């Protein structure tokens, strides 16, 4: 009852005309900026931050939050239509969203993304309202061994993202982990594999890897495909509405994605990208439609979108209740709060209850606004695909260049994108899928950090991963998953050998 009462009060705060206006402005600007490739939520919040200095703290936070989840939603639009992740977390949406667009189902993919984002957002809001204190406590109980085991499970599941051979999928994950080590080692301060290049000291930005592997790599492939007329889709502009079967197929993944996203969003340092990657990998294992994943499965759009949007909301839990930012964007939120003299932490719920509950209620309003704003705009976004590809792809290249350049105002990032773009094309040529690489790259630095902490705390005893109950259970699940992946690959191979008409995989 207390929660309902507090939420009711929060709703009154959020429905104040000024807060409603700032929420709308935030969501609108966030979506617009998020659509632009490479300019993600962090850049969007940075751009909007100076404007919030003149607002009341609650209005400012509501507007920043609107920009944040608006940008996260907007990122999926570029992922679906152009295979360019607008934000890092929407890179997973590319895997099935873009094939759907190429099949002439861009409208349905965007609709599914909007509905899943809405579902994930609402679920994230409910989780934040009900479980904020409890989830914060649970996250506090996670030690390095548990974090390591969760990440390991995520990585093994990520190899399942690959539609090709599991060995190639795991190899790509390992390569991603390796590239994640480039830069300054945060524990010792030593430079690793930077080759003396100062720009590599901070490592390779995720946006560069995603833009290169997915954006540039796909563009090189698509130019010739376009010349052959493979991209001339018959797009039904009137049909944005999923069929009854597609609705049915989306419901369970939205719930699963929202649950996984809510959990990962609440863990400091994980964030939406990890949430959407893990949710996608798990869905690919449990979905009855798993064979269609990577080829335009609607579940493959719904699950990462639900996960990243719910994680976007629950990322505020550690930020506001512990003062621990889960991501760089959340660090900006903490910075904004501190400029108002508000110190995030367990006392925030007591000392600034109106702000906390006003923000929670604004999630509801913001997500409704996002839906109202974006469903009618689907037609406009889809019409982008009607533009002949010969005009489209040079424009996309320019957007990639500007997006990457805007990260640090440094052309080195553009050169690096060129390298990853060429690598992405060669990977496709060699039949290596880039998605597991990206997931390994995201999770690698965190995995290394937790491994080193766990080994230090256990005085070099590696059995600690098996003896602690949570990590032990997770590692057993990981091992079972690995055995299952290789068993199914061998079974498929044997089936291929028995069938003379089937080419060798």
């Amino acid at each position, binding site marked *: 009852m207390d929660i309902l009462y507090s939420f009711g009060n929060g709703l009154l705060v959020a429905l104040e005309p000024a807060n409603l206006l700032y929420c709308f402005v935030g969501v609108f600007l966030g979506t617009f900026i998020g659509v632009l490739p490479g300019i993600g939520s962090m850049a969007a919040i940075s751009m909007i931050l100076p404007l919030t200095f003149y607002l009341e703290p609650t209005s400012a936070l509501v507007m920043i939050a609107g920009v944040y989840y608006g940008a996260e939603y907007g990122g999926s639009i570029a992922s679906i239509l152009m295979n360019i992740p607008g934000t890092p977390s929407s890179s997973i949406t590319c895997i099935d969203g873009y094939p759907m667009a190429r099949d002439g189902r861009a409208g349905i993919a965007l609709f599914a993304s909007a509905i899943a984002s809405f579902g994930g957002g609402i679920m994230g809001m409910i989780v934040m309202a009900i479980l904020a204190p409890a989830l914060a406590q649970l996250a506090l109980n996670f030690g390095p061994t548990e974090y390591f085991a969760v990440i390991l499970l995520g990585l093994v599941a990520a190899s399942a993202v690959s539609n090709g051979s599991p*060995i190639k999928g795991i190899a790509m994950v390992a390569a991603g982990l390796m590239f994640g080590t480039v830069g300054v080692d945060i524990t010792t301060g030593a430079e690793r594999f930077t080759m003396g290049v100062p720009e590599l000291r901070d490592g390779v930005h995720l946006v560069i890897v995603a833009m290169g592997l997915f954006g*540039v790599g796909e563009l090189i492939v698509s130019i010739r495909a376009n010349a052959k007329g493979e991209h001339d889709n018959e797009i039904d502009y009137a049909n944005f509405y999923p069929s009854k079967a597609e609705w049915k197929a989306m419901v369970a993944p939205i719930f699963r994605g929202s649950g996984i996203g809510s959990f990962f969003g609440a863990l400091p340092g994980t964030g939406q990208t990890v949430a959407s990657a893990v949710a996608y990998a798990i869905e690919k294992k449990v979905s009855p439609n798993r064979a269609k994943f990577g080829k335009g499965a609607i579940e493959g759009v719904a699950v990462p979108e639900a996960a990243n949007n719910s994680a976007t909301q629950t990322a505020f839990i550690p930020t506001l209740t512990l003062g621990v930012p889960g991501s760089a964007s959340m660090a900006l939120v903490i910075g904004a709060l501190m400029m108002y003299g508000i110190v995030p932490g367990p006392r925030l719920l007591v000392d600034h209850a109106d702000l906390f509950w006003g923000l929670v209620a604004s999630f509801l309003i913001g997500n409704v606004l996002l839906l109202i704003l974006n469903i009618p705009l689907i037609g406009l976004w889809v019409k982008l695909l009607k533009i002949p590809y010969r005009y489209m792809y040079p424009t996309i290249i320019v957007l990639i260049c500007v997006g990457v350049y805007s990260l640090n105002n440094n052309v080195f990032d553009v050169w690096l994108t060129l390298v990853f773009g*060429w690598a992405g094309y060669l990977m496709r040529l*060699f039949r290596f899928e880039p998605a597991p690489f990206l997931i390994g790259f995201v999770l690698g630095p965190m995995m290394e950090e937790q491994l080193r902490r766990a080994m230090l705390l256990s005085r070099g005893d590696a059995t600690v991963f098996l003896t602690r109950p949570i990590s032990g259970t997770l590692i057993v699940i990981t091992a079972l998953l690995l055995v299952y992946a290789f068993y199914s690959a061998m079974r498929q191979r044997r089936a291929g050998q028995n069938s003379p008409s089937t080419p060798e995989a």
Partner: protein
Amino acid sequence: MREFLLRLQQHAKEKHAPHAYFGALGGAGFLVLSIIFIVGGFELGVGSPRRLGTGAFPVITGFILALLSMGVIAADLRDTTDAEKPDWISFVAIGGALAVFALTVGRIGLVPGIFLTTITASLPDPSLRFPGKLGLAALVSLACWGLFIGLIGLPFDAFMRLN
């Protein structure tokens, strides 16, 4: 190896190379990469089990990748399916477009940089004639000027600084 060489001879005159060569090449590339990281990791220091060194994680992941790469090479050498024909023209043109942007944006400004980038990127598509490429480049560069500098206010120089 003998089988591989025999198949190499057998397919030498075919239009498309079988995927075996490309797949094995990919695996070999990863093998080289893993060796670089293993050697580099050992040079950085692997530390002790209690206090893992800077190079420990690259060495661990490098060894895993090396093993997997050998598995990939072994598996792909048995692959008999056709390989995709590479599109080197698009490969060079798209890479060239990024290179042109990187070389020009700081020197002559965002707008002319985008103009040249657009032209370079559009080169591999013969369906758009040169006047069309010029028109598209002009349109895209002006639109980006308005959007990124005018509307969003990104701190880029639109044109070369005269001083």
